[in-house]
């Protein structure tokens, strides 16, 4: 894996302002810092490289065109970009007409991650900007009980509704809602110290 460009502290402070000032070099820096995370998230959701790369492209187009819609008071920049990536990927997942051709591949992936586990962090990626956050999130998710983690993964990475999760897991709807609420509370507590690493 090539090393993504690291941003200086000063660059991080001014990146958002430069993006809003339509500085194209700022977009390039944002790409260097976030593209691996966006692609990782899109690949996780879509399990399809070409579609994930399409989402990657769409995300940066949307960020560039709608950067003015990002308000610092509404949250840090990185989760905002990742939420765009997630929404784009889930949209693509729902649009997918070749679902049946990928069902088998999906089945394999789900079997591997049936308990909601995610691949352990690869130490080779440790130099990637944001790596400490990645580890913290990974640890917070891994610390959840299996039932709660599985529900969180189905909701976040597959975009399933509460009812769909209940059908998928065979659990009562109320149980799904309760477990999801408890899981979100635990995640919020575990990640409350996380600060945006890209400003």
């Amino acid at each position, binding site marked *: 894996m090539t090393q993504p460009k690291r941003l200086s502290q000063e660059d991080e402070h001014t990146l958002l302002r430069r993006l809003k000032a339509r500085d194209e070099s700022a977009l390039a820096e944002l*790409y260097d810092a976030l593209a691996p995370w966006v*692609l990782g998230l899109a690949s996780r959701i879509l399990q399809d490289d070409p579609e994930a790369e399409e989402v*990657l492209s769409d995300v940066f187009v949307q960020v560039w065109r709608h950067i003015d819609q990002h308000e610092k008071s509404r949250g840090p920049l990185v989760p905002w970009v990742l939420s765009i990536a997630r929404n784009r990927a889930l949209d693509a997942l729902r649009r997918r007409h070749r679902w049946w051709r990928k069902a088998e591949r999906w089945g394999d992936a789900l079997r591997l991650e049936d308990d909601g586990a*995610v691949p352990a962090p690869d130490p080779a990626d440790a130099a990637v900007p944001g790596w400490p956050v990645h580890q913290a999130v990974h640890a917070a998710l891994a610390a959840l009980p299996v039932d709660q983690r599985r529900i969180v993964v189905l909701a976040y990475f597959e975009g399933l509704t509460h009812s769909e999760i209940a059908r998928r897991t065979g659990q009562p709807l109320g149980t799904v809602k309760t477990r999801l609420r408890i899981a979100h509370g635990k995640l919020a507590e575990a990640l409350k110290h996380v600060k945006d690493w890209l400003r």
Partner: protein
Amino acid sequence: MTDWLGMTPNPRNPRPELRARVLARATQPEARGARWGWLAAAALVALALGGAAGYWTRNTIAALAAERDRLAAALAVVRDTLGFVRGPATRVAWVPVTTNGRLGGVTIFADSATRRWLVRCEGMAPSEPGETYQIWFVTADGMKRAATMTMDERESTVMAMAFDVPSDVGAVTGAAMSIEPRSGSTQPRGPMVFHLRL
């Protein structure tokens, strides 16, 4: 706190050639042509609708105003006519007339308070070409011009006309009607249709 869950998956470095492509696509000017085309079309449609609505409104207002004026004029006539019937100083006279062998009649409502007359003719023969029926005020100083009434064959055999008694005409003691040239006469010269005292 699902904001950070997007960083759960391991990062994946994109293919190097993607970078230039993504950045170029992101920063290229938005294809606004189509959007502006739609906006322009929508604006034109709105403008056309607005113009049509304005045109329709203007015509409707003009038609309603004309109708209002017509009704107001008709109401004024009705009020004027009713005023003769209800006026305490109104005298009514009816005189039978024979014109060109046809039997008819003339009714005169004379309101001395408002110095207005209403003359109603019915069953009279149509005026000959170039001729008219002329009504006269009979005063102590002789006959004074009142009004001309031309009966048309194509119109109803009933005709009514209201008019004022001019201020320079003294006390009116009677009424008369004669047949005069179409432009009217200053003094009666033609055949007298009727002459009566009020």
